[in-house]
Every structure is written in structure tokens, then in C-alpha cells.
């Protein structure tokens, strides 16, 4: 076993916001009908947190459940635990029609911190970033410029952005560019 390396090896940038590649995260794609009680129960049991509502995130400890679509969730957990969690989920789900698959290595996580994170995101994603519309604990599946991404607001000054690993350099460059010092829009 070699030491796993994240896509950009914790690259960082300071500007309008602090941009940080957040290292390796355990990520599990869960497909299943949220309305199915068996599915919801199995997921909640293994994750240890409640099912999120539409476009929301529920966190507990180092585990988060992110709503991705009416039949998709993303479970965040420590990287080392992802494989085991997939096994547990598959067991807990039993005969329930569902899919749990480890995508920890398929994606990259960026953390954006600072008072101007909404400016940075709103330059790239066609999403309403006003504090009234996008509050801590909410997630949006959207695009950042030309690539797909999910953005999750942890608190008023911390956002996490998840995208495909292959475009990590592009996403990092995008975020740094949008965070060029002196380019605040001054609307939020």
C-alpha cells in the first residue's frame, strides 16, 4: 500500500478568499429512493446522521450526508473509512434497491474561506449566492465556469466545493482567478 496523494497535494492561494485543496476525503455516492423508508433507515444507521432535505447537508462528527438529487446522496467521511463504510452500507441496504460506490478518488474537495467567498463563487456559478438564498447547511449542484461541481456552505465564511479530480487544476486556477485581490463585487 502506497501513501495516497490528493490531486493537488493541498495547494493553496490567498486572495479575496483563501483557496485550499482540502486533501483526501472519503466520498461515497449513494443512489436510492430517499422516500423509501428502508433506504433512509439503512443510510442513517450507517452514516450516523439524519437524511438531508432537498439541497441541504446534515453533518455529525466527521460524517456529512449531502443531498445530490431526489435519488442520490453523497456521504462524506474520513478517507481511510470509505471502503469499510461502503461495505457496511451494502450490508445494511440488503435487498433494498440501491447503489453505494466509493468515489473518494474520483473527486477533489476545495475549501474556500473568508468574508468574500460569495463573491468568488458568484463569479463562476449561476447560483443565487445572496445570504438570504444560500445559507449555511445548504448545497447546490451546479457548474463552476465550464465544469460540474457541488458547493456546500459550512458556515458564513466557509464553503466546500467538490468537483471531478481530473479538473482539479482547472478548478484551482478558476478559484484563484476569481479571488484575485481587489476584485470584490461588493453586493453581498
Amino acid at each position, binding site marked *: *500500500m*502506497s*501513501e*495516497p*496523494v*490528493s*490531486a493537488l497535494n493541498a495547494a493553496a492561494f490567498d486572495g479575496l478568499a483563501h483557496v485550499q485543496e482540502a486533501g*483526501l476525503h472519503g466520498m461515497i*455516492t449513494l*443512489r*436510492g429512493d430517499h422516500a423509501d423508508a428502508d433506504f433512509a433507515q439503512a443510510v442513517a444507521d450507517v452514516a450516523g446522521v439524519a437524511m438531508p432535505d432537498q439541497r441541504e447537508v446534515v453533518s455529525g462528527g466527521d460524517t456529512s450526508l449531502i443531498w445530490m438529487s431526489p*435519488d442520490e446522496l453523497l456521504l462524506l467521511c474520513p478517507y481511510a473509512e470509505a471502503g469499510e463504510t461502503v461495505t457496511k452500507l451494502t450490508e445494511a441496504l440488503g435487498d433494498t*434497491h*440501491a*447503489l453505494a*460506490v*466509493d*468515489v*473518494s*478518488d*474520483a*473527486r477533489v474537495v476545495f475549501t474556500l474561506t473568508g468574508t468574500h467567498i460569495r463573491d468568488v463563487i*458568484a*463569479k*463562476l*456559478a*449561476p*447560483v*443565487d*449566492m*445572496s445570504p438570504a*438564498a444560500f445559507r449555511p447547511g445548504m448545497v447546490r449542484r451546479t457548474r463552476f*465556469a*465550464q*465544469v460540474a461541481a457541488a458547493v456546500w456552505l459550512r458556515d458564513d465564511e466557509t464553503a466546500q466545493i467538490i468537483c*471531478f*479530480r*481530473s*479538473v*482539479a*487544476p*482547472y478548478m484551482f*486556477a*478558476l478559484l484563484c*482567478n*476569481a479571488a*484575485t*485581490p*481587489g*476584485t470584490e*463585487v461588493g*453586493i453581498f
Partner: protein
Amino acid sequence: MSTRLATGGRLTDRTKQMKFRFNGQQMRGVEGDTLASALLANGQLMMGRSFKYHRPRGPVASGSEEPNALVNLGQGARFEPNQRATTTELFDGLVAASQNHWPSLQFDVGAINTHLSRFLPAGFYYKMFIHPRPLWKHVYEPFIRRSAGLGAAPDAETVDADTYEHFYTFTDVLVLGGGVAGLQAALTAARSGAQVLLLEQNAHWGGRTPVDGGEIDGKPAEQWIKDTVQALEAMGNVTLRSRTMGAGVYDHGYVLGYERLTDHAPETPGPRHRLWRIRAQQIVTATGAIERPLSFAGNDVPGVLLASAIRDYVVNYGVSIGDRTVVVTNNDDAYRTAICLHGHGLNVPVIIDARMQGGGALMAQAEALGIRVLKGKAIAKVKGTRKVTAVEICDQAGEGAVLETIPCDAVAMSGGWSPVVHLWSHCGGKLSWDEGNAFFRPDLSRAPTSHDGAPFVIPAGSANGYIQLKDTLADATTAGSSAATAAGHQPKVGTLPQVAPREEAAMLPVWLMPQGANVKLRSKAWLDFQNDVKVSDIQLAAQEGYESVEHAKRYTTLGMATDQGKLSNINGLATLSAALGEAIPSVGTTTFRPPYTPISMGSIAGQARGDIFQPVRETPLHGWHEAHGVHWEPVGQWRRPYSFVQQDETVEQSVNREVKAARDSLGLLDASTLGKIVVKGPDAGKFLDMLYTNMMSTLPVGKCRYGLMCNENGFLMDDGVVARMSDDTWLCHTTTGGAERIHAHMEEWLQTEWWDWQVYCANVTEQYAQIAVVGPNARKLLEKLGGMDVSRETLPFMQWAAGTLGGFPVRIFRISFSGELSYEIAVPASQGLALWERLHAEGAEWNATPYGTEALHILRAEKGFIMIGDETDGTVIPQDLGLGWAISKKKADYIGKRAQARSHMTDPTRWQLVGLETVDGSVLPDGALAVASGTNANGQRHTQGRVTSTYHSPTLNRGIAMGLVLNGPDRMGEVLEFTKLDGTTIPTKIVNAVFLDPEGEKQNV
């Protein structure tokens, strides 16, 4: 001569002098000037030449409607042509040059065209350049291209020095235009609690009201504007942006805002332009009105300006166009210019009013000041070429007999006002003709509608046809209130701003001056100043049958200049309607399209330039490749190694070396880009049987099967190996370019057609780095790493196994795209580089050689394996490629099955895949055609086949190719002639497409 007045200029600060250069000449302006006002202050009235006749041109307007005063602005990396001097804010060090002349602005050879104008009528290009046909390509088109365009094109190799960005925002109410109507509408909407965004294209609030004067709520308009802006700034739910133009209104409340951040201060850090991409629930268009020129002979001579513009230059910038200004009008508003000029100590020899009764209170005021007013009169002709020297006066009712000549150096003209309906119209808002005011105004019963069928654009103030200040503010209040209500807020009942009513006499529609002007005068009466379209041109177009306004526009180029007809449109279509003898509303307007004024290309591109022009997808091994001499090939958005070029090697040599290494010993390929889609569920087998042409449901767990995927029309769209992971789970490999497309294809069928099937899929392409270990020594390397039994017995061809290889958690697929002994190893992406490096280190004893896509292509071509995109092009079915064996005869259905039963799909004359070998061993050109005897109706040779893949095979040391050939498989050994680029042909033999190891012994060891 134009000059700076001793005092005045409400927007300027005379204590702050600025230097700038125009046509190489040093000039001085003051802070707050536009380039146009600064040039005028320096006596530079002539600023350019018109497009067609190269006539001298000075500014005719003072704002964004300006058609004439266009300049080449900036230098080098900040050069931009066709910038309007009237909206370019002056800054210290500005450099500008005039356009469309040679050798100089003063003396222009092209001005000969004005003397040839009777030979250059409307539709000249269409008439002249149609015959003889062959001359078009070699003579006419190059000539026309050379004379096309006004400003200079930026140098192709120069990179724009500035940055640009986009910004997405959402609002309840968006108000476009920060004049008094926009301010009042915004205030009204904001008081309801709605989120309000207010955009103003200029640097200043209040529009032209401060120039026109008047009192609001008992205080001067300028004070009211200041107070209102302050009130808005103090509200938490309001955002104000000046220097930001509403450029376009699109479906469902989408609006583009164009913010110019540093145009007025180019050295300021930050983006130059920001393109606001706005979603608004309701849009208020408070875009004001534009004054119309009058059509009289010589109305294009420098010094003839809109009456409002002359007023603007005096009041806003303290600049006069001339000492003696003749005012000519059909309405009361132009009297304000006369009164204003008089108040600034300038001479107004006469006001020529086309109306027999003249005007109202303003006329009385002008007469009281001692200004001479002539009623029922017109300008027959303006004298002067580069500047106005005099006007000849005639009766408006007559044909132009001169009654009097009055020397002057400026003419202020007003043909009435047209509401700026552009943004109302962009998304489908309709117009109605207002007979009394002679203008088109928004028809509120036919507003642009959103997804719910409800209107989402509300015009306000003069943009809605309410020209008088009192009416403007009342209408804006209504608009703001309606917008708030429609956006779900409860407007507060407030008091209307109090404005004393002003008596103005009715205007008189005047579309030609004098009304009976003879042809000589008509052919000097300009409608479109930039493109040189005159009254006579429109009349000619009508006479020649161009009755539709859209046709007449294109025939004459009316309104096709950079100003998009802001001044010429209404006058032109009124002229057309008169020529056709139809009412103006039945002729209609041309279409208003965004943007309102041109926006920069940079703002459209936003951040997409340089490194982030496009996303480049990188595999986990990308950095290693870069460090090892990679020659990249773009594959979709991925970069894949084409070859790894060593020192003293050509790319061709390195490709040959890589092929041989894989054939003779050990090759390593980064196959991470291959699509990997997990398909799981009780119905997954059934689903895959429908997607692939062969059976996947019967595949045993642990085994792999090559599959073909067709679209509904039967055409081959993707291929790849499918592995059965467990009872209810399959892993589908796709082509590199197919991963997202095929994933979407799966989801589409699952969501739209087979929504009741229990299947989930997930795209896990990027979870794994995938490495192909290829060649006779492949097994030895894996055995050396240890941990898994990779023997022929335990892991035979077309099986897969999971385990730990050399400490890495892997899945090994025993599949081959090269015909060699081959293992594809999938490892979590985060460990991909470590495994890759380990394979190189441990494989050194067998000369482990990384190979790229070109070697991969040659390896597969030598084996006759097809490549999606080479052998297929969207018109090829599996049956064309000899892949009938991969099509299940047992299955009742699969996507494409019925299409493949169509008569032309089963036609035996469809070209079929074969191998091709040139007789002399050379390499066939890619895409070469096999010629047949005879020619078709177009005189082209008949063909009987084409090359789909062609390479030099280092293994066979000769050219090999695949191609589709008529009855190919039945013509083995036959020699056909294939085309070469030089027009000759090359004899080529039809052979089996499998050039190497037809029994497959090498991969099966």
C-alpha cells in the same frame, strides 16, 4: 469653431487638467470630459469619415446613440476600434485616432466616393457585383473585404492586457436606466421591501433631466436626483451600479449587464469589464428616449447636431459647437437649446419651426429673449463641407426654393423624440404607434412574457412614451409599484413627486424637409450617417420592390451600422412608408436585438482565457508524463500522451519504438481516461441487453465481454469491455470520449423510457487510474510485484480479478486492445502514480516502455480492431465492420435493432470493412477514396471505398490501412486505386483487416 466656454460644465472639474492625443496631436481636456467634449473643446469638430462616401463626420449626438464620432482607441495591448467618443470618458494619457480615411482625416482619397454617389445607389453592391460570376471570388470579394469595416482590426497576435469576469446575480426587481424614471421606479419598488438592482450606463445619475431642467418636489431636479440616490444607497435591499448598461433582455427574466470598471481609469487594478448575468423576477426598462434628426439636405455636415446634444455639451461640459447656432425643429423641446445657448451668451440667429403655428410657452420665452422665430419654414440646405457655414431657408410646404440664407456655424435639429424601446423589445415586447407624438411606444397589452405567461418587463417614463417630466415620474411610480407587486411584494402607497405641468404645443411629424424636396435635395438628406443612407436610397429601394422594412434595411444598409439605427430607424421607416403610401405602423420596425450597444468580446469571454480558457482534464499520471518528454494529444477535454519522445528522436521514431517495445517485451499505457460506469440493480442485466447489441445478462461473474452500443438509428456509437462484478452489478468500460455521453445515454433511457426498471448507474471513471501492462513480459512483471495469481489458468483471457498487487488494492482485467498478452490494472487514482512508477521500476529489466495513443492505434490497427471515431463516423453500423458476431440473434430487442432492419441498412452494397495494403508498401493518405469508373452529375469521379485508418506498421515495416469498400470482403486480393493529395492514385490491394496474428495466439498465452 467649437470651443470651451468661459464657464459651465456641470460634470467637469476644470481644476483637473488632462492631456490626451488625437491623431498624434497633443490636446488638453478636463476631468469629467468625454473624449467627444474634449475634442470639441480643442476645436476638433471633425472626428471621422463615413463608411461608404468617406464624408467628413463630426458628432451628431452626445451619448450612446452616436453614429459618427467613432475612434480607434488605445494602443498595443489596449487597442480597440469603433469606440464612441461620446461615451468614452477622458483620462490622462488617452490616445485616440480617427478612422476610415487614407492618408489623413483632413485629406481622404476615399472621399471621391461622395462625388460618385449617384453611381453608388442603394443596392449598388448587389447590382454591380453579380456579373460576371467568376469575378466575384477573385476581384469583387477581395475588394469589398478590403473596404469593409471602419476601425482597424486589432493585431491578431497581440494579447489583451486587461482581465474580464462574469458575475451571476438574482434580484426581485431590476431597473435598467438611472434617469429620474429609473430612480423613482427603483425607490417605489424598494419601499415595498423587494430586492432592487438599479443599473445606469453612464457614470452619472439622473439622465438628461439636469440638462433639461425643471423642479421636482419644489427643488431643482439635480437636487432631487442627488437626494433620491442617497435615499436608495441607504436602503439595504437596493444595489446601484453606474457605468453598467443593461445590454440585453432574454427569456425568463435573464438580463446581461455590462459594467465598465476601468475604462475611465485604465491603470486601475481589477477587471476592465464585468458581465453581470442577472435573473430578475421583474424588469423595469427606464431607458429614456432619443432625439431624432430631421431629414434635410446637408444634415450630415459637421456642426449639425441634435438639439439636445448641443444643449448637453454646453451644460454638461461647458463646450459650444459654434458661436451662431440655427435651431430647426418640429417640436417645442428644441427651444430649450435656443434658450440655453442664449443664456450662455451664444448667438441663435433664428429658430426655424416647421409648424405653421409654432410652439407654446417655450417659444414665447424664446421670443421674449429676442430670438427670431420662423414658422412653417424649413432648411432647404446646409452650406459647407467640413463645417457648417450657412443654412438656406425655405418653406416647409414647398420644394426648397430658397427664401433666405443665414450664415451660422452650427445647426441644432430636432425631429421629435423616440422612446428607447430596445430592451422592452428584445424578448418580444410589441410596440404601438402613437399618432400624436409620432413615435413607437411599448404596447403594454403585448409585453414579453415569462414561463407562467405573465409579463416580466415593465417600461417606465419616457421609455414608455411619457416624455413630459410630470408624466415620466408618475409613470415610473406606477412601474415600480407594478414590478414590486409582480415580484410578490406589497408596494407602499406614497405620494407622487410633485412637478408643475408645462404647456407644450403639439409636435408635427416631419419626415422630409421641405416636404416636397426635389431629388437633388433628397439625395443629400441623410438618414443613416455612418452607413451613408439617404432619403433617396430608401425611396429607390421601395421603388425597386423592397417593401418589407427588413428587406429595405438590408438592401440599403439602413440601421446596419455600429449604432444599429438608433437615430435612423424611425426616420427611415417613415420614409419607406411614405414611399409605399402606407401607414407607418403597417410598415413596422426592424427587429431590436441585443446588445443595446456593442459590448467587448473580453466581457463575453470573462475569465475563459489563457490557462482557464477551457478545462483540461488530467489523469493521475499527467505530471509524470510531462516530466518524461510527452507529446500531448487532446482527446475531448483530456490530454493523453500521443508519444513519449526521447532525446534525438522524432515523434515518428518514438512511436515506432513504443510499438516495438509492446510487441517484443513490455509496454505501459495510461488508460485512465477510459470510461467506467457501474450499473447495478435487479434489472441491470435486462438494461444492458437493451443497450448493447450482444448479451450481457448471461456474462458470468468474473468474466469480461466486448460489447457494441448503437443509437436508435442503428449506428454504432460506442464500444468497450463489460465486466460482471457480482450478481447484480456490471462495470461498463466506454471509450475515452464516451464516458459522459454514454452515462447520460443510460440515464436518459432509465429516466424517460424505462423509469420502472430497477437500475442505478454511476460514473466512476475518475475513481481509478488504469494502467495497461502489455507485451510478452507483462505476466512476468505482475508476478514480480506479487500478491495475485495472474497465470493463464487462474486469470485467463477475458476475465478479471480483484486483489492486492505489490501492495496496491487493484482490479486486474485480462483484456487486450493490442493483440498482446495484456493486463489492465485499475487502482484508486490517489495511488495511480505510485503504481505506475513501481511498474516502471520493476519492469526496467524488460525495458518497460511507456507508450502513447499513436502506438495504441497502430497496435490495434495491426490487429484489425476498430476505433470509434475512425472506423465509425455516425453513419456506420456494426454490420459494415464485420462485427455481426457481436450482435445477438437471440435477443428480442436492443437499441438500434429495428433501425438495422431498414432496407438501406441491409443493402448488400453498403461499403464493408477490409484491410488495405498499398502495392508499394507506402502509407495511404488518411481519408483517401477508392476511385471507380465514370463520373457523377457534378462531374466528380465515382468512388467505391474510403480509408478509415492508416498507419505505418513498424512490426510489418509497411503501410497498413483499414477502409470501407464496396463489396470489399468478396474482393480479397483485388487491387483498387486510392487517391493521393497530388491528384494521382496509388494501387492498393484488398486484404484481411487482421494483419498480425490472425489466430490470436499472442494475447492468449
